[in-house]
């Protein structure tokens, strides 16, 4: 992408695929919150290797080697294991046109790659006592904290949408769901449907 930094004082407006579902949280009995648009970069590198080392220097944390895990970066981001040579970096504190070139400049000479995928996915947060129940309605992954504690990640299906599921806490009460932007509305509608019984109970 152009490395030209944004110059205008009035930035071009952004739209979020779930702007049109403003009552998502209410309709899911408080369990689901759509997170703001988040900078995300897909990183490819051989591990161990010089590209992985370069990525670690940029991110301030080593790329997680263990399948199905994520780690926090010192700056408040996350690095999610997606495959033996593939990671997803989420960083709400920076812009795509800052993070992608920084990672690419560090990784490419070492045989790695970095690709801006910020608009590729939407992030949902699931929290509270209903979080696991909603997941269980359409996800085969065992989310019990004894086997899926904070730091675990899974690429799986929730209903008919591919998702990346991150456990954020050890008490089974906080998760993040990454879903392809084009599937975001389907998944939001499915979550609202899955919450029907809880909504009724609240009322």
């Amino acid at each position, binding site marked *: *992408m152009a490395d030209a930094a944004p110059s205008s004082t009035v930035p071009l407006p952004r739209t979020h695929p779930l702007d049109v579902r403003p009552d998502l949280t209410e309709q899911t009995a408080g369990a689901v919150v759509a997170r703001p648009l988040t900078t995300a970069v897909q990183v490819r590198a051989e591990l161990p290797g010089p590209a992985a080392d370069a990525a670690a220097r940029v991110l301030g944390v080593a790329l997680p080697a263990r399948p199905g895990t994520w780690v926090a970066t010192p700056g408040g981001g996350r690095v999610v294991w997606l495959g033996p040579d593939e990671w997803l970096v989420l960083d709400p504190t920076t812009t795509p046109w800052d993070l992608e070139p920084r990672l690419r400049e560090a990784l490419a000479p070492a045989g790695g790659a970095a690709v801006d995928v910020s*608009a*590729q996915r939407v992030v949902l947060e699931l929290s509270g006592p209903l979080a696991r129940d909603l997941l269980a309605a359409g996800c085969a992954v065992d989310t019990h904290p004894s086997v899926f504690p904070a730091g675990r990640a899974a690429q799986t299906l929730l209903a008919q949408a591919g998702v990346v599921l991150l456990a954020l806490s050890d008490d089974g009460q906080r998760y993040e769901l990454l879903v*392809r932007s084009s599937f975001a509305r389907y998944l939001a509608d499915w979550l609202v449907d899955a919450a029907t019984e809880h909504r009724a109970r609240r009322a």
Partner: protein
Amino acid sequence: MAARDGGAVDDVACDLLLVSGGWNPAVHLYSQARGRLAFDTSLGAFLPTGRLDDLLVAGAAAGAQDLATCLRQGGAAAATALVELGLDVVPVPVPSTPPAPPATAPDLVWTVPDVDGDTSRQFVDLQRDATVADVQRALGAGLRSPEHVKRYTTIGTAHDQGKTSGVVTSGIIAELLGGGPDDVGTTTFRPPYTPVAFATLAGRDRGQLFDPVRTTALHDWHVQAGAVWEDVGQWKRPRYYPLAGEDVETAVLRECAAARTSVGILDGSTLGKIDVQGPDAGELLDRLYTNLMSSLAVGKVRYGVMCGADGMVIDDGTVLRVAEDRFMVMTTTGGAAKVLDWMEEWHQTEWPELRVHLVSVTEQWSAFPVVGPRSRDVIGAVFGDVDVSNDAFGFMTWQDTVLDGAPVRLARISFSGELAWEVHVSSWHAVAVWERLVEAGRPYGITPYGTETMHVLRAEKGYPIIGQDTDGTVTPQDLGMAWVVSKKKPDFVGKRSFARADNQREDRKHLVGLLPVDRATVLPEGSQVVELGESGELPPPPVPMLGHVTSSYRSAHLERPFALALLKGGRARAGQLVHVPVKGRLVAVEVTGPVLVDPEGARRDG
């Protein structure tokens, strides 16, 4: 109808007849775990005979018939399992249950005597149409075991794998041999057991949730603009945008005319997009596309075709060289996932030595073709810092710019033959950029158009849609695109197949244009193309089929309908008359080259 012990026969008219082969709980997992089943005459069902080492049976599987018993047994089994796993048992209160309905002992009826004694109309397996007569024949041949009877009669081998016929077959065998079902037993249950999912009976995958609907970032804009939708895979794409009172034909003719005479805009965001990075990126693309990609200069765009190992076209699209070590590959909408898999498979299994990484960016980038003679004015107005003249911004080149802080990529790509730019932008900013383009296009009557108009415009130029004008048996040469097949490259996927005798036949089906002579008939897609004999009549059946119509539209530009077709020896038939049967009459059509609008390509530079 008659009483079982005889008596008068009544005829009863009915719309639907429900039949039952008895009920047996789903004990397959138990049986597969080597548990022994025994026939319970009080239930008329085969039941497990107790626990196995690691297997407890509870509820209906154990023969329980009412909710209270099922809950009690389930709780007890769960508690036992927890204790044996060394976990704490947290008592869970068992919900109260309404009183169970009074149970009646089953009447075990394996066969109902036919009034005429005809057992060949007494069906046992309703999917295989196997009858009591078939069971009798099997026993008559000396077979005794239900395993053998099953294989002799095919009972239990169809869709439900004996779920509705297995037990009744054991019962019938027992009855015919004189004994009880327990003496006969059941067939061996083999894994996998496929249950009838609860979701099949009462799931939530229905209505809007039946199948995911994929939406582009501009979905709400399209809704507001009154789009009529086309389902493309799971995507919703605008097919056309009718104005008040317009039908599809009028709307599409209007949209086509706008793109050919002024300017139109399309949401092309569903196109597949793959980021290809690494020092060997060009080499990988050289091996997968039929033409040379590594020679593409940074800043330029090239059209490419991918073939299978059999030399048949599987996908096409444009490729942008973004940097020395980076390409953006565009695929068809339908081919997006398949092409990435295809590239990964070759890279991972055949050429792991290539230093290249592939990442899907289909949804990262929104893409809008801005098409027509006035597109230069629109692009120039929105992106004031870009010199949009032909000299500064040539055909098949791209340039990056920034719009109020948002990076935008512009590419001179044309799927219509017109002067056109594709605007690529992060989907975060898709709505804002689209709205700017529409606003800037207002003085020129910028017209949003849908997939139908896109199809007409490209067909007028003879550009094939892979999967519509091709069917997996079509080579690039068949499409008239020998120019896209490199003669210099030492190898690429599909190359060897082009040398096969069959792929060199003169009478292969070629992509051609068809013009109905009556200037009125829109040939139905899929219609066969036939040839009259010297007598001017159809030859006697079977009439040789020369090919079929793959695309067919009304053209605003040509002011007549036209079609594309795959036609045997088609290129040599240019100028000939052939016929297409339409609703019982033969429509005369003239064979032409596939490029019907602007064959000299004069329009693409505006």
